[in-house]
């Protein structure tokens, strides 16, 4: 009689693909959870040993430190929570202004890098290589040093029209004071935007049906910029300026941008612009010349070709890496701490942390803020990429 010897049970299970993957996953989960449990237990024991709990109650205590650049009212008697918000707004300020400048410079450099002009091409190339191969922190320190060392002292401020002053303590500009009637201008602006969105769709429908092309761009400029300006004057210019003036040892009044902000903003934008330039160059080069030629062969004029054929395709290549550069810029703005610009890391993750000794809570807040921001942007980008993705067979 023939007997087939069965291999051991475990061996049989292990050789089955499904069972093996289940075993691996169960073991992984078990290991992961025991590791997390181990960390959490250590944390509880350690916190108990020094008599610290885990609570966010300290956020309402007075922060008792000053922040030299704030977008909202703040003084040292305000709470840690308010200091956090001030820091968050400062991060947002430098990130948004940085993104705007970096995008403009990046597109300009990217296009110049493709220029047939050998000289400008090389100059931009050298700039991009220098920026990309030197650490950002060094750029920030260097720009900060240049800003602080080369701008004049308060007494010898560079002034433009006696209303804008550039000194080594900051950049002073007049501050707009809005009167209630200014709301009319804001409303006109919003209506202008709504109108142009509707008008663009309408123009496209008309073009699809009749072939007639409206000058959408110029009508848009008129609706979004022109109309609010007219409303502004009709409402009797409801805007006053608070002009900075030298009083004692410093300027009073107006708005001020500190040298730390200026240095961080410039360094971040110049650094990111180099990366954006390379992305833009790659994006434009990715569109084969045949596309342009085909458009010309169809009789489409050069600027319409750019608008309808090249740019939409190039954007599809450019936008995903571009958005990750924007995220990088925002995350890199945390280097502010090196030159003393009070962003979110420097406020709650720096001074508040050191004053209250609440490392866990403070770092949780900082990490949570950055994560919320990054994940929501990348979720949006995923959605957007799916929408513009080429539909292939």
């Amino acid at each position, binding site marked *: 009689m023939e007997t087939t010897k069965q291999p051991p049970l475990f061996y049989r299970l292990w050789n089955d693909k499904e069972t093996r993957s289940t075993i691996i996953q169960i073991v992984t989960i078990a290991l992961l959870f025991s590791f997390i449990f181990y960390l959490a237990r250590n944390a509880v024991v350690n916190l108990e040993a020094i008599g610290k709990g885990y609570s966010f109650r300290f956020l309402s205590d007075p922060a008792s430190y000053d922040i030299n650049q704030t977008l909202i009212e703040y003084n040292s008697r305000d709470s840690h929570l308010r200091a956090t918000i001030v820091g968050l707004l400062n991060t947002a300020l430098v990130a948004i202004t940085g993104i705007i400048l970096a995008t403009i410079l990046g597109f300009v450099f990217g296009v110049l890098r493709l220029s047939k*002009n050998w000289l400008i091409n090389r100059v931009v190339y050298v700039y991009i290589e220098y920026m990309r191969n*030197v650490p950002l922190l060094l750029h920030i320190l260097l720009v900060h040093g240049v800003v602080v060392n080369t701008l004049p002292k308060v007494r010898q401020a560079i002034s433009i029209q006696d209303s804008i002053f550039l000194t080594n303590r900051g950049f002073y500009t007049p501050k707009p004071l809005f009167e209630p009637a200014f709301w009319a201008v804001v409303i006109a602006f919003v209506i202008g935007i709504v109108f142009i969105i509707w008008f663009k769709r309408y123009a496209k429908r008309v073009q699809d049906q009749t072939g007639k092309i409206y000058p959408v761009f110029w009508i848009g400029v008129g609706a979004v910029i022109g109309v609010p300006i007219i409303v502004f004057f009709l409402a009797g210019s409801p805007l006053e300026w608070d002009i900075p003036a030298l009083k004692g040892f410093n300027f009073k009044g107006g708005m001020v941008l500190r040298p730390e902000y200026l240095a961080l903003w410039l360094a971040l934008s110049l650094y990111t612009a180099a990366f954006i330039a390379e992305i833009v160059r790659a994006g434009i080069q990715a569109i084969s010349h045949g596309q342009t030629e085909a458009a010309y062969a169809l009789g489409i004029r050069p600027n319409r070709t750019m608008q309808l054929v090249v740019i939409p395709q190039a954007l599809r290549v450019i936008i995903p890496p571009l958005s990750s550069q924007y995220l990088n810029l925002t995350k890199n703005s*945390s280097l502010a701490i090196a030159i003393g610009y009070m962003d979110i890391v420097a406020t709650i993750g720096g001074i508040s942390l050191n004053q209250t000794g609440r490392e866990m809570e403070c770092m949780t807040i*900082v990490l949570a803020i950055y994560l919320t921001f990054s994940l929501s942007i990348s979720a949006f980008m995923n959605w957007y990429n799916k929408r513009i993705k080429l539909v292939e067979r």
Partner: protein
Amino acid sequence: MSEKQQYAPGTHPSLPPPANTVGVIGWVRSNLLSSPSNVILTILTVYFLYVIIPPTIHWLFLDAVFTSSSRAECREIEAAAGMDRGACWGFVTKRFGQFVYGYYPDPERWRADLAFFVLLASLIPLLWDKTPKRRQCLYATLAAPFVIYWLLTGGFGLEPIATDKFGGFLLTMVIGVTGIFFSLPLGILLALGRQSNMPVLRIICVTFIEFIRGVPLITLLFVASTMLSYFLPPGTNFDLLLRVLIMVTLFSAAYIAEVVRGGLQAIPKGQQEAADAMGLKYWQSMRLIILPQALKISIPGIVNTFIGLYKDTTLVIVIGLFDLLGVARGTLSDTNWQALSTEVYIFVAIFFFISCMSMARYSLYLEKKLHTGH
């Protein structure tokens, strides 16, 4: 009156090209002055270069003082020679030891030198594929990290040296090389995990990668320096440098994972199916079929991540480690060298520029060498 020579159709010898389309003139015409807007652009650029370059060269070299023992002495030398105010490079030679070794004790510095040579020697078979007996050399390379570790920290017959004595170029290299060495395998594993068809592994890898990529490195370094000790058993206290190394490695592993994932996704599905049809197991098909192709595509991205990691080593100054930039900044608080921030930062910038540029060049060379397409 000479008779014009007659040619049969198609037999006329080619005329030389017009004089203004060849040589220097032709080059200038087609590259600098091809259209009115190009002429304007060229003029603006030349003016810009004229404004920027001569003063920079004067400041950097012609009016600079290269040897002096303090900033004041620089200024005296300049005044004596009647030069304009230029750079003062004396600190480079005076503090060279600190720039290179940080606070590594003087009599033991030969160990750092030796470690550096071991590193260079171990890189040769890795980077240069014509090394004689490359296979054996690569095994030796695997042993190099341990030798370097032993040389730098001591023990087993060498005097132990605490890691807080590391600094300058030494620290930059330690962080950069360790990060690169460990983050590549970890990143590949994470990428494979993210592509795996086991949901648990996939979720863990995605969570890890997205978390790390969602926060700035600085905050992770802060976590390492302030918070990590809470999660360890009471009484343990492990080295700050080690904590930083772990964080830097995890950080760049997450980025490498994304780069490698891009490479994996670019491999046609047929490759995996063919490997399965040949009866290869998962690890065999990955090792022999998928990864060699995927890694080849991702080389530029991987090297970019390495360059990023190398540049990010400067961030350790915010948690109180003194890498090259940290030591250079320390120079500024020396009364002899105060207010020379521009010189000091330019010196560090040149160093980083050269090292990052050579990494980028190597990746271009590798890309060209491995390019097997059409």
